[in-house]
């Protein structure tokens, strides 16, 4: 029993340590974004664009496909569930709300955590191992400014953008199934979607996507900067980073869904 309590205590302390490290890293990123220019170490627009391309543009196709599939899936489940009550036509409201509020941001978040989060951790971890981070510092380049800040900003741009794209694709996926199953035209479908949706629904999804962007960037960066122990250490950190990002995303999703629907 005592061992168990000790174990829980140690885990809690190391978790708090981790949260502290992430907060400092975030503050450091913000610091360089704001005052970098006055210290001759501006965060370069070109770096942000190149990161945003890697995170966002290159993931646009796969993220659209996934959101489309989720839309189709929601439509099938919705129609099947509502059929016994003769309320199939209500399925459109269900699709519209759950895609924009929930599924588009969540699917995009999980996809980017797995796709870019792992890449970021592995890249920074490898650079640390091969003394590239030391080389940056010796040249006089702050690693947070050069490597971390562009990633953070790029996430804030790419994840919400992909979420908006995912909204469209998810709704479109629903449309394809619903229109053939319920024999209504796409025009009517989207009319009903628009009357069901308010701006607040879109915002809810966007607020979540910004929170997810923050989680992915900070978790993957801090895991990368804390890699210890060679190639195996990079592997462990990468796994940890993806699992932690996805866990935090789902937990944050729950909390924000609760808060935003009060």
């Amino acid at each position, binding site marked *: 029993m005592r061992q168990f309590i000790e174990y829980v205590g140690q885990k809690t302390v190391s978790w708090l340590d981790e949260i502290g490290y992430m907060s400092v890293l975030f503050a450091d990123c913000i610091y360089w974004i704001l005052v970098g220019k006055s*210290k*001759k*170490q501006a965060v370069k627009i070109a770096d942000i664009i190149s990161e945003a391309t890697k995170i966002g543009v290159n993931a646009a196709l796969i993220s659209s496909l996934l959101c489309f599939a989720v839309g189709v899936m929601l439509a099938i489940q919705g129609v099947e569930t509502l059929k016994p009550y003769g309320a199939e036509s209500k399925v459109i409201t269900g699709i519209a709300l759950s895609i924009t509020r929930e599924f588009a941001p969540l699917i995009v978040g999980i996809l980017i955590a797995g796709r870019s989060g792992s890449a970021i951790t592995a*890249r920074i971890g*490898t*650079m640390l191992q*091969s*003394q*590239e981070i*030391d*080389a940056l*510092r*010796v*040249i*006089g*380049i702050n690693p947070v400014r050069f490597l971390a800040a562009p990633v953070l900003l790029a996430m804030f741009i790419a994840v919400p953008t992909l979420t908006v794209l995912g909204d469209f694709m998810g709704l479109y996926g629903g449309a394809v199934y619903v229109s053939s199953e319920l024999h209504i035209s796409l025009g009517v479908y989207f009319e009903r979607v628009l009357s069901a949706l308010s701006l607040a629904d879109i915002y809810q999804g966007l607020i979540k996507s910004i929170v997810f962007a923050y989680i992915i960037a900070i978790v993957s960066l801090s895991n990368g900067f804390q890699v210890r122990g060679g190639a195996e250490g990079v592997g462990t950190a990468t796994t940890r980073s993806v699992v932690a990002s996805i866990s935090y995303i789902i937990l944050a999703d729950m909390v924000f869904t609760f808060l935003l629907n009060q």
Partner: protein
Amino acid sequence: MNDKPVIEVRNLVTHYGNTKILDNINLKIDKGEIMAIMGGSGSGKSTFLRYLIGLNKPSAGSIRLLGKDIAHMSENEMYDLRKEMGVAFQGGALFGSMTVAENVQLPLREHTKLDSKTIQIMSRMKLEVVNMAGFEKLLPAELSGGMVKRVALARAIVMDPKLLFFDEPSAGLDPVVAAELDDLILRLRDAMDMTIVVVTHELESAYKIADRIAILDKGKLLMVDTVENVRNSDNERIQALLNRRSMEEAVDTEEYLKRLTN
């Protein structure tokens, strides 16, 4: 010419966790001098270099580079000092995602406002110096070990620094390439009047290039003297290091048993 030493280390003490690594190091290096820091593995020579180039902060004592104490220096002063020093790391620490040319150009892009044509010419000049012209477009992964070290050297000298630090220039290279690098270091000192600190465990290389040799052993500075005097030293440990004699310490049986049984 300035009579004050370019590098001055006073009573340097450093710790790793609770273990003392470097113990009361005092060392002065003059302008235009080539100092070889030698010692077996675990002697603390790589650690010493990390402190000299300002990657770690000492527990006690001071390190003055070009007359300024790097332990008590503002971020801006350190940033300016970085322009005056170049470091070539043991594994090269070239940025894997950048080409040879981009690696060499990075310090210029960060520290100067030169236009990119000038930067290109300057970086090409440095690549000429290290006989790596024509390899600009290759990635570090496509280079051999000796080429990586030469590119790392080109990057270290691209800002025409007053201080050059070189970690293990000949480690892992065949004798011919190692000898070429030694010649290169000598040429650099003569042509650019640099002060050069080389950390090495290769005797031949140290004898050839060094004006003076500093020998570290178990975190203490055993001797700092000219090549001739170091060679003729009658200190047992220095002779062991120079003549590749193994240095088994007399085994204290009781202590040994205690260690085993803990």
